[in-house]
């Protein structure tokens, strides 16, 4: 294994192999990943574009179109495409590349497929870290394609600077477009497969739903496209550029910093809890046995761990 410093240098110099290795290290939660990300965090530049929507809505095809468009504007483009991992075997079939392979030999396009690995919000646990690596390596935008989502997987809106929600005809009536969750997170709502029947109805449902938005909130633009034929893509491109221009780089960076810290705090919380479980009950398995034996509830254990942590902090004195 290449030493961490070489990998960091390689990423900064744009070495494909080093970037690929760094992505694996952060994805696998390797002990070196914190050092790598620490060095890369401040090098991030540009912006991230999230693409979400139901399975088969055309997200990968749209991503491929966006790659072409950004390349023609001379951008280097990063792509993180997440597909679901099996909850039973942990295996995954990562097939998003099929629609993007025409860009495979372009040295200024970096595409990485990721399994969701048990993460439920539409991304994988390491998507933010992977995006940091690609951004620090000079790719902008970084396009983040979620797994095919249902109604509530809204995590991408937290990660991406701009989120495209891709919808297609035939997935339900007007009440579907009034529901909370996924329908609320698109900065732009993309109506794909405009060549299909039902596109007019879909547009009227979506627009009617937006009419109900509380005043003061910014309404998303609605853009009709056909990712296959290319119809409407220039309108979408312009809509994205308007949003990018309206955001400042400083706002993007500070928002990303806050969210990244939040993710890290949650991960640390898990690590500390495991350590406390070790101290208090000889580990997670022993604690689980106590629950199964009917001696303690999970709530009692949670409370006990917090009390123990507080005692430890008090004992160490106030700083």
């Amino acid at each position, binding site marked *: 294994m290449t030493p961490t410093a070489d990998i960091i240098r390689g990423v900064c110099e744009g070495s*494909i*192999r080093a970037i690929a290795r760094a992505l694996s290290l952060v994805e696998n939660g390797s002990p070196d990943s914190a050092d790598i990300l620490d060095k890369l965090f401040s090098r991030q530049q540009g912006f991230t574009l999230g693409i979400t929507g139901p399975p088969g809505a055309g997200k990968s095809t749209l991503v491929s179109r966006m790659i072409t468009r950004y390349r023609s504007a001379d951008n280097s483009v990063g792509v993180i495409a997440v597909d679901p*991992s099996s909850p039973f*075997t942990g295996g995954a079939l990562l*097939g998003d590349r*099929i629609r993007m392979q025409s860009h495979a030999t372009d040295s200024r396009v970096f*595409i*990485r497929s990721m399994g969701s*690995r048990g993460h439920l919000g539409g991304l994988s646990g390491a998507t933010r870290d992977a995006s940091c690596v690609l951004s620090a390596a000079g790719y902008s935008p970084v396009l983040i394609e979620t797994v095919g989502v249902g109604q509530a997987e809204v995590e991408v809106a937290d990660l991406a600077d701009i989120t495209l929600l891709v919808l297609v005809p035939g997935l339900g009536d007007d009440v579907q477009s009034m529901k909370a969750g996924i329908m609320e997170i698109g900065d732009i709502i993309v109506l794909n497969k405009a060549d299909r029947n039902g596109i007019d109805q879909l547009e009227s449902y979506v627009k009617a739903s937006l009419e109900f938005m509380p005043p003061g909130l910014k309404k998303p633009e609605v853009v009709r496209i056909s990712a296959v034929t290319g119809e409407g893509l220039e309108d979408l491109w312009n809509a994205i550029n308007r949003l990018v221009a309206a955001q400042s780089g400083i706002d993007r960076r500070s928002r990303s910093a806050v969210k990244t810290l939040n993710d890290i705090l949650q991960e640390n919380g898990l690590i500390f809890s495991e350590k406390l479980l070790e101290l208090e009950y000889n580990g997670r398995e022993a604690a689980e046995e106590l629950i199964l034996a009917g001696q303690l509830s999970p709530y009692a254990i949670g409370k006990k761990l917090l009390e123990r942590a507080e005692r430890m902090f008090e004992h160490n004195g106030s700083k």
Partner: protein
Amino acid sequence: MDRKIRVLIGKPGLDGHDRGAKYIARALRDAGMEVVYTGIRQTPEAIADAAIQEDVDFVGISLLSGAHNHLFPEVAKLLREKDASDIILFGGGVIPEEDIPGLKNAGYAAIFTPGTPASEVVEFINTQMEKRL
């Protein structure tokens, strides 16, 4: 550490018969691996570049057109040129017995011919992975 075995399944050449490739991809998925499937009619360059970006441990090439003696070694050569000869190669498809030694010489750790049970491919990958770690 949450390390998964990553495998890229690629189909170079002009034949569109991807049932074998999909069958293997699915079997490896069910064995707990992350399988990147690139689809049909890929150039050796596209397969090699994708394998490097995806940082896979294995590349499996499927071919039924008869051009294996040209395309299989080409993928191996490109990976060597790109400093990625640590990626383990295997191949499958309609490949005559007498061509197999040549492909192994070109860098293929195994060649699987029609009728091979998927479990054999899974076992091959797991054995190679153990040797490496």
